[in-house]
């Protein structure tokens, strides 16, 4: 299970990073979302992966660390708000600049000609 989990997190991070580096705002927003998914998964695994464990300390028995779960909950809420904000911001940038490039312009050569 560990390797599957690690591969999932890694692939999500790689895709997110690739998309964040794109030139248009929509892929960037999707990339940020993927990145935050990957981070949430990563954070979730930080207490160690446990199956069938209760989320409380019960002596030496099998238990799931509850703290990362609480942290992930906080991170999900914050990430959700941020995504909503960045979507609106991207739409405003699209309407103000007239195109959806993160720099607000298409290409240098095009601008020179116009």
């Amino acid at each position, binding site marked *: 299970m560990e390797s599957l989990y690690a591969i999932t997190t890694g692939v999500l991070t790689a895709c997110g990073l690739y998309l964040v580096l794109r030139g248009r705002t929509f892929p960037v927003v999707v990339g940020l979302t993927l*990145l935050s998914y990957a*981070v949430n998964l990563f954070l979730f695994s930080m207490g160690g992966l446990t199956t069938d464990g209760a989320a409380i300390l019960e002596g030496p028995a099998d238990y799931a660390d509850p*703290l990362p779960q609480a*942290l992930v909950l906080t991170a999900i809420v914050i990430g959700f708000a*941020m995504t909503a904000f960045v979507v609106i911001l991207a739409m405003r*940038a699209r309407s103000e*600049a007239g195109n959806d490039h993160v720099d607000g312009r298409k290409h240098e050569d095009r601008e020179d000609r116009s």
Partner: protein
Amino acid sequence: MQHLIVLPVVLPLVAGILLLYRRQGATRAKRLVGVVATALLVVVGIALVARAAGGEVTYYALGDWQPPFGIVLVLDRLSALMVLLTAVLALGAVVFACAGDDERGSNFHGLFQWQLMGINGAFLTGDLFNLFVFFEVLLLASYALLLHGGGKARIQAGVHYVVLNLAGSSLFLIAVGVLYGATGTLNMADMAVRLGELPAERAGLVTAGGLMLLVVFGLKAAILPLYFWLPRAYAAAPAPVAALFAIMTKVGIYAILRVYSLVFGEHAGPLANLEQAWVWWLSLGTLVVAGVGVLAARDLRLLVAYLVLVSVGSLLAGIGMGSPAAVSALLYYLVHSTLITGGLFLLAELIGLQRGKAGTRLVKGRPLHQGGWLAGLFFVGAVAVAGLPPLSGAIGKALLMASAEGGQRAWLWPILLGTGLCALIALSRAGSTLFWRSQGEPMGLPLPRRQWFGVAWLLGASPLLVVLAGPVSDYTRATADQLANPQVMVNALLNDAGGTP
């Protein structure tokens, strides 16, 4: 006053909620609430400094969950100083905004208060994850404040700023996760203890986590390869917001200072001071690049934004040297540079308002209506920020240079003095263009008194810092000693049975 420590967080929160009451209208009431809350924050800051000055580390356990299990707010000399500095800066900015900037968009005062809440929380918290939460609070408020008033330049600068900081937040979470996985705690004092007894096979993991945190804090502080967002964002922000943002880079510097002095102090064995070499060389690089940027800026706001970068480089050089003397010098310089760059952002707005179409661009324009007063203030600000005697910049730089040892001198002295020279050249060129190269009739309206107050309040800090240089540097030296000895805080937090609910 056992609840004093939580007031810098609760007060702006309550004020911000009150200010949400109506989105439009009720301007006078909103301004009153905003200014009164900020003024109260100054009073609270003074009380906190008075309480922390004795050297005792006190904490406030929220919900009476004792550390290391609960979330704590920790008050020591450093956090008290930073809270007071924030409040003083914010008072100047909010009074300035009351002259009309707050009515260009909605909810200015509410967002302003929440930003203060985030900043104060970040300064006071003793918990790594809570630091992340307060970073998010201050960032979310700053996103909205940066876009206050709208306009193409702001939106574009905002897109870069938001995307970059969201990516930074992801990295912050990863770093916190790694450190939690390796040490099993999030309380910074507890983490410091656990690092001392860390099994050798986890050292690599902690190093990776610690250096990832440095990247995150470096992004906030605008260290060399991560500063490209700063000049555009700061130059595009509305003046009172840009003035408040002067403290935002210092939040990053505070976080570096706090986390690495407490968690990665001497007791951490092989992991001790793992950030120092990185910070030292990158700070020198930041200084060089900022010097070039200052010379190349063709707009007064952009020029001041690069001056912020110069101050960041100087402060980080202090961290890079790491000795208590250097930390003491950097704290003095931090107080000075925050207030002066904040004041210069406000002053740039005033100059732009009176020059009509030319605005803050460094081109020939109309003469200023109140040119004499503005030029006087600009002169004071320029002398202070370039580090010329007799104002506070000279004292801060002299302290920094005096604290350099041996080989560090050969690097720090020429670079720091050279950057100062760049700033001096750029500022004198800007000043002569703005005030002397003019033609036509002065237009502009007389400026409102609130704006004058905001500028004078912040720039007046420089002579005040010279007069009070003795007490202030005594305080910063005591702060540096406290930081160099993290055991005091660890004992206060973990071995103290008492505590306040």
